[in-house]
């Protein structure tokens, strides 16, 4: 099985053959991964030990060397399809409510073109007004919820396409 992992701005090709041998970026590595607790691993690479924690799963964020890094994984099939499902950049972006709250305002309409960082909506939660911003530039292809609605955490609010 072959995977491509994007970590922050960096890409790794991870390959594991049926014998269990592991190749990273075409180099065979002696790897020993031990799970310490539910979201905590220690990975030994050629004798050197590195600790990795899984901070969140969706989106996938990892903790390594005392800091956080966003990760994306694509398998062979997804790579063949151009990485659409676990997109590597120019994919469709679903904007979801990060937590339950009240959608106070929508600042865009369907068809609007927005820049990366543009404010899309205001969600009131935890007694604060929170601006939801565009993670990347795109066109608002769909608005799923009306302003004034109460939304659950994870609810789809709108969709951006490149």
């Amino acid at each position: 099985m072959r995977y491509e992992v994007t970590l922050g701005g960096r890409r790794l090709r991870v390959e594991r053959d049926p014998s269990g041998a592991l190749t990273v970026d075409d180099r065979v590595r002696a790897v020993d991964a031990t799970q310490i607790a539910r979201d905590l691993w220690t990975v030994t690479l050629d004798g050197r030990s590195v600790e990795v924690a899984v901070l969140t799963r969706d989106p996938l964020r990892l903790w390594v060397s005392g800091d956080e890094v966003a990760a994306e994984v694509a398998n062979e099939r997804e790579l063949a399809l151009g990485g659409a499902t676990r997109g590597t950049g120019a994919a469709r972006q679903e904007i979801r409510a990060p937590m339950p709250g009240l959608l106070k305002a929508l600042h865009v309409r369907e068809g609007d073109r927005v820049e990366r960082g543009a404010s899309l909506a205001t969600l009131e939660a935890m007694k604060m007004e929170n601006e939801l911003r565009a993670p990347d530039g795109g066109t608002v292809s769909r608005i799923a919820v009306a302003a004034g609605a109460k939304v659950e955490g994870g609810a789809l609010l709108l969709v951006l396409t490149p």
Partner: protein
Amino acid sequence: MKRIRRILIANRGEIAVRIIRTCRELGIATVAVYSDADRGALHVRLADEAYPIGPAPARESYLAGERIVAVGTRTGCDAVHPGYGFLSENADFAALVADAGLAFVGPPTAVQRALGEKTSARRLAKAAGVAIAEGSDALADEPAARAAAERIGYPVLLKPAGGGGGKGMRIVRGPDELALAWRGATGEAGSAFGVAALFVERYLEHARHVEMQIFADTHGNIVWLGERDCSIQRRQQKLVEETPGPAVSDELRARLGASAVAIARAAGYVNAGTAEFLVDQDGRAVFLEMNTRLQVEHPITELATGLDLVALQLRVAQGEALPFTQDAVERRGAAIELRITAEDPSAGFLPSAGRVSLFREPAGPGVRVDHALFAGSPVPTEYDPLLAKLVCWGPTREVALARARRAVRETIVAGVPTSLPFHARTLVEPDFASGRYDTGYVASHWPPPAPLELDDDAAVAAGIVAVLTRASRAPAHGERNGQSRWDTAAREDALR
């Protein structure tokens, strides 16, 4: 006043735990209260007794003053500690407590009223000879705000006259921003404090937020214990505090101390209080407001002075005189507090909610962590996003920062996005590290220009865990090499 033997703690989270600790050390029995969202919470389990007070929304539980006082009366408490936030600066609650015959751990109701309304606090400070920021009285409507802003000159800060903690504030940079800001601030102030009144104040662009801790007893003794620089903020919410302030000279410290004591004396203050000031680049200080309660960041003052501020609060509340004079207050070394909040710094500090799946506490020399976390603890949406406070002490600022860096590196909070990545990056950022910062710091320095650089082995290790995590199978404790994970992942991927 009589000796406190049993106390009701009208709060939750890390501050309720903090107060329980000191009470236990003093032999005072503790009664906790909890909302339905907090049934398994740490403060519930550490208290001697704990009773439910209502559903998750604060208005029906931690803000339900009458219910809370009823628990205190029923369980034979002789005092109430309000912590910070919630009802801690609510004079009506303090009156309710006093009417029930319980001691309120905080200033008298009249003092709360005089200082809690900010325009009144400003008048009081001015009368005591303390400089205040140019500003207005409470404003009737938007046109009045517009007139006041024109008089003072933009940018101005639109602030709720009631409440505290930076909620509902708006920076207004010009006339065209006023209408939107007025509507937003009115709404937030109303929903957060039940009081919608606003006023405007001159906004200083490159100032530091420096506050001074004071303590007053019922015998007329008032002391100051040192300052805290709280300039590292976003949306007027503090993220980092330190003492001594990197830009505070001995002269300025003494001046702030004297000003804070003058205001406290003029107000007839009793118990712990914090006078907040803005200090400009030339060392000129103007008084902003008085927080009439324990401050979130009080532990850095405790580490520097060796005092237990909660123990002092309880002594003062039972009528004892302060056990030391101003001359005996010794400050040693430097201390810094990092607020670990359930907010996502990579998404504009958006609050997050969920469940903490893993919490690894840092420890060792000079490290104190005040928290109410455990693996599995829920992060409810209803309350403040503060999860833990990482507090580090060192004989010098350099050592305190070095300890904070290594403690942050040891800390893991998984399950919800937290402010930890902000702290990891900020602690090594040159302007912060050298103490050159003001309240504009976060806006001008976050997000950082360059992404995190992983070394090769770290990247490979993270990449492998990323692939193993992709497999949906429930994790097995102690599993080696993730053998079955690889197989599961391969199987699942083959099926897609």
